[in-house]
């Protein structure tokens, strides 16, 4: 089992997680009723643990400013108010629009590129294919600080419009390695060999086969990379901080500004944290089982 088998198999991995063990009788899995109770109690305890921050965000975001004394921090709001939500929304709304117009195209473009690369790498065994693969793979581990300053200069020299276009370009380029990896594993494990064999032609034939045969059967691979890329672009802060400003930056930059500074409005910050998390949470709730597959596939990425 190679290391990126752990990273492999996109939808397959999600399916593997969902697959319940076959025998669950008391004897077959070696556990007794008491050990089950203990296991359940532990699971619930950890659940509570994970949900503490959620409780805090929710209750605080509905509190009036008079209600945020130290003693009442963990209590439910005395009077429920939507003011923090309004305040946060007023600040964040333009950032949300920019983040959407950034994350959607960036996710689509880098998925398309990744799909083409992945197909070539998975099925076209040319000499040096492994070196090319390693060459691409390394790109997803680098700390982006190491390229950030020249990147800024390059974009200025190329006269790329500041703000969303700059970020789309950056995320597409640096999203290529992870999307390539996901699709390479997808094509290597999921797509039947017979279909691919027919694609073993060269030159223009390769492009044609890709468009006619491969693209239509890549849907589930695309779902995974789209979710993965959308989430990482949406949540990115580093590129946003280095390449954009408050007037043209994405939502992480807006939230950092809302929650930073000298006098922090905690209620509005918490509401803002929720507002900015909604799109990824919705994606996660609706497409959660694919998201897990995406996590597996993205196992090599940070």
């Amino acid at each position, binding site marked *: 089992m*190679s*290391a*990126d088998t*752990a*990273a492999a198999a996109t939808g397959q*991995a999600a399916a*593997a*997680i969902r697959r*319940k*063990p076959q025998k*669950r009788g008391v004897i077959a*899995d*070696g556990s007794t009723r008491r050990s089950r109770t203990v296991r*359940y109690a*532990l*699971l619930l305890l*950890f659940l509570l643990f*994970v949900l503490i*921050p959620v409780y*805090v965000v929710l209750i605080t975001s509905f509190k009036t400013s008079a209600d945020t004394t130290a*003693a009442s*921090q*963990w209590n439910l709001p005395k009077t429920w108010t939507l003011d923090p939500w309004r305040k946060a929304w007023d600040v964040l709304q333009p950032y949300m629009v920019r983040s959407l117009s950034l994350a959607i195209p960036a996710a689509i473009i880098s998925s398309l590129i990744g799909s083409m*690369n992945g197909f070539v790498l998975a099925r076209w065994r040319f000499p040096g294919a*492994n070196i090319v693969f*390693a060459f*691409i793979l390394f790109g997803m*581990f*680098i*700390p982006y*600080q*190491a*390229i*950030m*300053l*020249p*990147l800024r200069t390059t974009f200025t020299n190329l006269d790329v419009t500041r703000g969303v276009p700059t970020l789309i370009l950056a995320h597409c*380029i640096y999203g*290529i390695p992870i999307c*390539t990896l996901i699709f390479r594993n997808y094509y290597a494990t999921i797509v039947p060999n017979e279909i691919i064999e027919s694609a073993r032609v060269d030159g223009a034939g390769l492009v044609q086969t890709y468009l006619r045969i491969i693209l239509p059967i890549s849907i589930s691979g695309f779902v995974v990379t789209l979710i993965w890329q959308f989430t990482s672009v949406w*949540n*990115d*802060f*580093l590129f946003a901080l280095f390449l954009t400003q408050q007037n043209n930056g994405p939502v*992480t930059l807006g*939230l950092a500004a809302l929650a*930073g500074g000298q006098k922090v409005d*905690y209620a509005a*910050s*918490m509401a803002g*944290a*929720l507002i900015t998390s909604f799109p990824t*949470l919705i994606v996660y709730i609706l497409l959660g089982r694919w998201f*897990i597959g995406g*996590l*597996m596939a993205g*196992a*090599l*990425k*940070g």
Partner: protein
Amino acid sequence: MLLPTVLLLGYFVYGLIAWSFNTSLTDRHTARKGPASYVGFANYGHLFGEDRFLNSLKNLGVLTVAFIVGTLIFGLIWALLLEKGVPGESIFRSIYLFPMAISMIASGVVWGWLLNPSQGEDARGLNRLFEILHLHFLENPWWTAGSRWTTMASIALPAVWQLSGYIMALFLAGFRGIPPELREAARVDGASEFKLYRHVLFPQLSPIALSALIILGHMSLKLFDLIYAITGPNQFRTEVPAVYMWNTLLRSDMAKSAAIAIVLLAVVAVLVIPYIAYTVRQENEE
């Protein structure tokens, strides 16, 4: 078909790294354009003779250990609790995993509030919760005082919260990928549950454990957003090279910030290059 990608990455990854490295060898200590002269590795020499940079490296080391150990422990425990299948498994799985979908800036907002250093009468955040639960001995100043270990462990705590579910998902996929016949055979041979895990199941998971280690390691080395959101960028106590690089850039010291970034890259490369080589070689054998 691969050529555009190779050219793009050739320039934007390798070319720009070379550019940064080149800058780090000069005396470009301002934002001003114009010729700069080469000073060899002098910038690196200064860095490694500087308390602030050494402090950031030590912080990074402690952070990485605390983060990796914490995340592996929680991830493995959750996977072990879930792997045999319990009623409502998908709910537990989803809730353990969801922090992964949140940006580190958003989680930093909440954890900044939770890790409030006030104690006793005026306790806030988690300390207030400990006060309410009469667990006074747990109250502590988090990252604002105390040793390097307590400081960086406090920073690792939110990161552990975010990524344990991910490690759980990895291990869970690993457990489910083990053929059921292996377990059956071990049980037929009379192996105890402990021995079953120790000698049969865990060895099967070692490739996944290695991946997990590499993923967590390189994430930790690059951690920036969370520290920025919780403590602000200008905290000596919690500064790591990624943050120090940003602070240096704010003072427009191009050469020095490039040198810090290159050191960071070198640290990541030491971790990752053997791993990539290993991965590629293993695939060749298959």
